[in-house]
């Protein structure tokens, strides 16, 4: 996989599904998206990561042709959202952050009503709806109203609904926010199956684990710009070390004393409750800490994750 920021399309390779150049979204004075460039290729899962308010949803809504572009250029499926909205949207599937299911209608009717917006004949819509309910593990609830369904079921139904038109590109805005671990894992499994079937996916999330699981390539957004882009592994390689040593001490003085380990690590971070030492040789640091008699209450060596990259790039300050 090429690691250049904007990989050029190789000869013979199909054109990217989405191309953005200097893309801007402005709400009055506020710059939500501040001139970003990206390409989304056929068959891949592309992720937008970032803290709340980073501009992820604004970018997604522009790709979905639901929000007008304020500046720069955007091409989706080779067309211009400003003039070809209906033609583009007829080939997209959107899973919005906020559910827009009709709570009073049944599960099945929600799919049929939605299919009718795409002018899919009623009989075809019913057939596809039954297939998708099976895919979403909702077949038993087909005749039930949507309102009493659990959050996970509603998300699965929303994903099924986005697939009813057999889209070329499916856009998922925080698909698993607010779900319990079981529901989240089931959703990941379904999204993975979709990818196997060749459906291109664009995902926003602030769950790093989700991004590592699902995304082939991703960008980390902060304040409307891209702080980094690449595959999860590339990003970890570029912005973090192979391993992280986490040391917890009984007292603050003990922790301060252990700061003398710093020269052994590539980077050190002192948090109120623990010391993080970033290094490719975690075990060596841990052994040295014990040898010097620092006696941490707990000490562990773990692999670097995307979360380490994310926190390094976007900071630990709370964003509200």
């Amino acid at each position, binding site marked *: 996989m090429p690691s250049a920021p904007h990989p050029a399309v190789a000869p013979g390779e199909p054109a990217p599904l989405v191309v953005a150049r200097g893309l801007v979204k402005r709400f009055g004075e506020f710059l939500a998206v501040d001139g970003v460039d990206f390409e989304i290729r056929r068959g891949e899962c592309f992720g937008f990561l970032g803290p709340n308010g980073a501009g992820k949803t604004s970018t997604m809504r522009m790709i979905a042709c639901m*929000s007008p572009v304020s500046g720069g250029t955007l091409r989706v499926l080779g067309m211009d959202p400003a003039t070809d909205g*209906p033609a583009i949207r007829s080939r997209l599937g959107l899973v919005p952050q906020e559910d827009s299911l009709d709570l009073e209608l049944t599960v099945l009717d929600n799919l049929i009503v939605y299919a009718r917006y*795409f*002018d899919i004949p009623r009989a075809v819509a019913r057939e596809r709806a039954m297939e998708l309910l099976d895919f979403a593990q909702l077949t038993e609830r087909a005749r039930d109203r949507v309102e009493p369904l659990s959050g996970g079921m509603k998300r699965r139904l929303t994903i099924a609904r986005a697939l009813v038109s057999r889209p070329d590109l499916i856009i998922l805005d925080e698909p698993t926010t607010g779900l319990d671990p079981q529901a989240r894992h089931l959703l990941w499994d379904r999204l993975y199956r979709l990818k196997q079937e060749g459906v291109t996916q664009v995902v926003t999330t602030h769950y790093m684990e989700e991004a590592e699981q699902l995304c082939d390539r991703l960008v980390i957004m902060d304040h409307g710009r891209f702080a980094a882009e690449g595959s999860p592994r590339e990003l970890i390689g570029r912005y973090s070390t192979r391993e992280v040593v986490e040391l917890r001490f009984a007292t603050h003085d003990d922790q301060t004393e252990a700061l003398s380990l710093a020269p052994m690590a590539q980077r050190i971070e002192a948090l109120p409750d623990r010391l993080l030492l970033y290094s490719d040789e975690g075990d060596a640091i841990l052994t040295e800490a014990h040898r010097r008699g620092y006696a941490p209450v707990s000490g562990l060596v773990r692999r670097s994750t995307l979360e380490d990259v994310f926190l390094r790039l976007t900071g630990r300050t709370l964003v509200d």
Partner: protein
Amino acid sequence: MTGSRRRARPLWLRSLGYWAFQYKRTWRSSVTSSFLEPLLFLTAMGIGLGSLVDRHVHHVAGVSYLAFVGPGLLASAAMQVGTSEATYPVMGAIKWIRTYFAMLATPLRVIDVLTGHLAWIVVRLSMVSGIFLGVLAAFGLVRSWEAVLALPAGVLTGLAFSAPIVAFAATQEKDAAFSIIYRFGVVPLFLFSGIFFPITLLPGWLQPVAWATPLYHGVALCRSLVLGGAPLGASVVHAAYLLALIAAGYALATVTYRRRLSV
């Protein structure tokens, strides 16, 4: 993407399709009340109050009180349905159920969402006016074929409320303003637009106010069509006034809908 060669359905018709589909949930109670309302009003106002009025005044504007009040109540029923369909369902489609946003993720555009919803209101107004007209006929108040035109007249009356009100509803964050529309709009219009007595009986300064309201024109139009012998010139003026309100409301709604839904 269906692989068939049939012609694609217009986008606004697909939005109308949703509203028709979801109506199946409530159509029984809705149709029942469309019958009951004229029945109750005509019995109470026309026969009850009417017998008293007729005994003392003999006739209002040359007809029995029942015949005077009946067509006006049709116009008022259209106003009420036109108003209620343009308030809470619009708020629901924006904030509560978010139907509009579901539609906008599909090929539908903002203009299709708006036009389809108004088209559905036209369907509802046709049902209500048609049923009301049937009840008027059952009371023996329909005298000529001209009365059939009271159905489109009822639709125009209702839509003259719906179009501006959907434009307004799309600007609202809460439903609080809707009850104000009822209290200070619908109720006074119902009382003072010539349904129960000719507006010539109002104080002089109030008459131009009544004349400016859409319901007055709806009432006058429906009444002359149902009772027969509607003067052409006046009917054209009434209809044109209602149409102008509809056109203005629709134009305004294209702006407020776009501002609200396409950000």
